[in-house]
């Protein structure tokens, strides 16, 4: 719990160094094979050159799909490899809205020009990093692990309450719910994602319940951050209700102070609520991403391998953790989602 708050605080600290950013969109400059574009309403259509991918939307490539996008602000490119999911999200950090480019599954590489303070945050389901003039590739493993490899520039990565700085030709792997591992030299050769992910699958199959527990911890971190904001939002709602009642009293009395009270007290409360709501949505959608692309895959792997031996102990142990995660998810995250998110 504390580690998760430090992660968010750490991102806040880093983001504080960056001036206010406008949320960014990405334009599609190349596609090949089968590439889907899921909009914020949850509808998936084919991604075409020229299509704009906006905040809240995703790009999903099939086994033959590749896509390249460019951020509409600045010269930055995003390459989405086959069997991958790239999400463009937004969150408010210290009152500043920042774009977060997420590799939710598979492999996504990103290259940013050195624009002072304009780079967005990058990450996956279990970590977020600030980048500066960077070419970075993010690999999202089936067990929730992330491998972040920097070709050029610098990256400051936060996870599990710890920060690691990566320079050119350095990489680090982050397992879910844990601090970043030891960084290592990376000579710029593209990682064989299939092979790397097969390794992740082997790690998972060696200890499925253990892997699921790590995912549970990661999801719990996001959930706790979200849950911490809910009472704040409720308080703002209560403050607004009181302020609205006071405003009504002043208006009914044709009190000249009503105009200033409306502008100075009531409207800021509406704005505060909107900001909190945005952050709550960010955490809920992050958990949804892990639920869908990590936990769902884990379940499929275990279930499909044990159709003929459902009594297998490893499988039973995994199912126990899985059920626990799903129960918590249904209780606390689903209420923050809408059908369009699914």
């Amino acid at each position, binding site marked *: 719990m504390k580690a998760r708050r430090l992660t968010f605080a750490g991102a806040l600290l880093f983001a504080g160094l960056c001036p206010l950013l406008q949320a960014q969109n990405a334009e599609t400059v190349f596609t090949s094979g089968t590439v889907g574009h899921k909009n914020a309403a949850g509808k998936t259509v084919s991604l075409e050159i020229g299509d704009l991918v906006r905040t809240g939307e995703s790009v999903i490539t099939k086994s033959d799909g590749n896509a390249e996008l460019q951020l509409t602000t600045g010269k930055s490119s995003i390459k989405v490899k086959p069997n991958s999911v790239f999400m463009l999200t937004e969150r408010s950090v210290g009152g500043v809205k920042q774009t977060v480019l997420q590799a939710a599954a*598979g492999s996504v590489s990103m290259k940013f020009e050195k624009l002072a303070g304009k780079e967005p945050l990058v990450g996956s389901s279990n970590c977020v990093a600030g980048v500066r003039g960077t070419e970075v590739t993010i690999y999202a493993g089936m067990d929730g692990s992330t491998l972040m490899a920097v070709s050029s520039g610098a990256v400051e990565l936060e996870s599990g309450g710890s920060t690691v700085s990566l320079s050119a030709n350095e990489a680090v792997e982050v397992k879910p719910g844990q601090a970043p591992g030891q960084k290592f030299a990376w000579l710029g050769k593209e990682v064989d994602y299939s092979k790397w992910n097969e390794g992740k699958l082997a790690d998972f199959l060696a200890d499925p319940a253990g892997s699921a527990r790590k995912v549970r911890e990661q999801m719990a971190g996001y959930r706790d951050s979200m849950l911490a904001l809910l009472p704040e939002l409720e308080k703002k709602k209560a403050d607004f209700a009181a302020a609205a009642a006071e405003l009504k009293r002043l208006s009914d009395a044709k009190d000249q102070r009503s105009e200033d009270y409306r502008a100075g007290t009531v409207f800021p409360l509406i704005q505060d609520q909107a900001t909190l709501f945005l952050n709550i949505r960010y955490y809920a959608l992050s958990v949804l991403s892990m639920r869908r692309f990590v936990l769902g895959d884990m379940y499929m792997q275990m279930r499909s391998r044990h159709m003929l031996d459902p009594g297998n102990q490893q499988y039973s142990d995994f199912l126990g953790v899985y059920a626990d995660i799903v129960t918590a998810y249904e209780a606390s995250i689903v209420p923050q989602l809408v059908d369009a998110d*699914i």
Partner: protein
Amino acid sequence: MKIKPGKLRNRFWPSIALVALALVLASCASVPYMPGEAKVQKTVALINSGGVPGIKGLSDAPFIFDAEILLLQAEVASLWDNLKATGFGIGKAKIVSISRIGDESYRLFSPTAEVRAFFKKYLNRDSVLVTLDTSEGRYLVILNREVKGYPRIQGFKGPTK
């Protein structure tokens, strides 16, 4: 040259007949898909033989597996590969029902908001729910219009007792 009216009519009637046939066939495409029992048993035989991975496009994302939504093609492919590798088969199946997907059909997979949303968003008027009984229990399979002679498989659950 004079054209006799009778011969003129004979020349155009085949064309009119072809147009009529094309229009009728086009109108048939708007009738929702409903596989017969033979098609369902053909699909069961394909699953039993581990043949699903061999037919491209037969089972694709988005897919529902028990209560899990699989959005990546690689995940659906892995599902069928794993089932084939373990020698899984439905076995001898008795068709209990073949029915249109209704508003409450999702509850048979899982009575959750996510599964309800999947059914609403990713299934269409051509999606059909097949209920099969076997010695291992009950299976639910969601089928849709055919690919290479087999109904497309959009969802799978079971066996449940």
